[in-house]
């Protein structure tokens, strides 16, 4: 769910807008390191992928379906900075073209889904990957934990913003419990989808997965055994 206009008061919206602008500025520099001058086309196409895959409905049981949010998955696939840019671009398009998420709340949405979800998801991923042996299973486990935690983390960040600048008099404990509980469930779905997608990419094109770079082994270059030329050669 994107935060609409008028949900948070003006100071909070402005503050998150400043945070979002700073994050995007940093991400623009960081993405250049990840993708060099290919940033624009590759980040653009990855954003188009995120946009499309958010429309894909995955059944999660009991007749309900959910869709991927994709912050952690994108960070593992293309690197955290590019992922921040991709999520930001998707949110801008959704706000400007589909009125999904308010224009004045754009900074809030970028902070929650671009910054908190991606950075926390990727941070947890790196931590888990470091603790586990460098295998495909380790990468998938890291992505699962990162994706799972990124969703309730964004929800709780939202509750925090709501506590600071919410316009309704609601008991915070109740909001935190409800949002946290619901988003733990959504996080489970996010983790399952992330693992399914990432596992398949690792099978087909492991070289494309930024978060699995440590699994790639350099091709060993061994000197070809030299056959000594016969003494009676024509050369």
């Amino acid at each position, binding site marked *: 769910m994107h935060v609409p206009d008028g949900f948070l008061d003006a100071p909070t919206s402005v503050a998150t807008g400043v945070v979002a602008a700073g994050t995007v500025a940093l991400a623009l520099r960081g993405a250049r390191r990840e993708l060099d001058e290919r940033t624009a086309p590759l980040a653009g*196409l990855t954003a188009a992928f995120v946009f499309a895959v958010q429309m894909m409905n995955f059944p999660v049981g009991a007749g309900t379906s959910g869709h991927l949010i994709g912050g952690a998955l994108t960070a593992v696939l293309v690197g955290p900075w590019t992922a921040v840019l991709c999520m930001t671009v998707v949110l*801008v398009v959704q706000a*400007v073209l589909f009125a*999904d998420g*308010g224009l004045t709340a754009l900074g809030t949405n970028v902070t929650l889904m671009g910054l908190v979800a991606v950075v926390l998801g990727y941070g947890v991923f790196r931590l888990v990957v470091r603790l586990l042996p460098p295998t495909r299973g380790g990468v998938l486990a890291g992505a699962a934990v990162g994706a799972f935690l990124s969703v309730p983390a964004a929800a709780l960040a939202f509750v925090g913003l709501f506590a600071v600048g919410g316009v309704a008099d609601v008991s915070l404990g109740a909001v935190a419990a409800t949002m946290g509980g619901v988003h733990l469930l959504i996080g489970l779905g996010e983790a399952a989808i992330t693992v399914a997608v990432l596992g398949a990419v690792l099978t087909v094109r492991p070289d494309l997965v930024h978060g699995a770079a440590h699994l790639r082994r350099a091709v060993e270059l061994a000197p070809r055994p030299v056959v000594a030329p016969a003494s009676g050669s024509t050369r």
Partner: protein
Amino acid sequence: MGAGHGGALGAVYVPGSSVVHRLAAHVKLVGVLAFALVVVATPVGAGWAWAAYAGFLALVLGAAAVARLTPRRLVRGLAVEIPFVVFALLMPFVARGPRIEVAGLSLSESGLAAGGGLLAKATLSVLAATVLAATTEARELLRGLERLRLPAVLVQILSFMIRYADVVSGELRRMRVARESRGFRPRHLGALKVLGPAAASLFVRSYERGERVHLAMLSRGYTGRLAGDPAAAVAPAQWAVGLSLPLAAAAVLGAGMLVG
């Protein structure tokens, strides 16, 4: 998170030649943003708040009428609000403060006001943004964002995303048609075994398309900047027309504050 976000980008714009269509994109962007700010700034608790909301609604519907948008298009734009409506409807039940009985339910007064206010504000802003999206081509919107000093690289990423979003979504749709014509029905979590690799191949295809696009750009002399025509100057009259919506809304707000 039931329904997914978005839809076909091409279906957003409604071609036309009204005054609203002809305004420069960045003027419209500023106008809609300022309108949303005025709407958000209206205090929910004030007694005249609902009169102000009615005034804002009349203004934004007036703008839609000038742009010759059909009610259907506006309602379609409002569909994004649905998950949020659920949240706003919960508000009277969970908020604190004095409670009133409505049809046998114990509701919080402040929660009712807050939920209603949130719903009104969100609806008004969504309507304004829908008018913007329906009267401005995606490419024009990008140029508008560029003129509002959005970083050039971000604008380039946005332009690639908008250009290829329908291509990538189209691949996704064809993959779904192919799956379903072979009898696949996603029913439970086991479907992830099929849907996961589908999404994965979509990523691989998108990324490889990005690499091909980059090579094609390089072979056409891309140096990291996209060439564009110099932006035409915008006459003050255009600004006056574009800002009439937020200015009128601000007048409504001011009148409410004076009277109330």
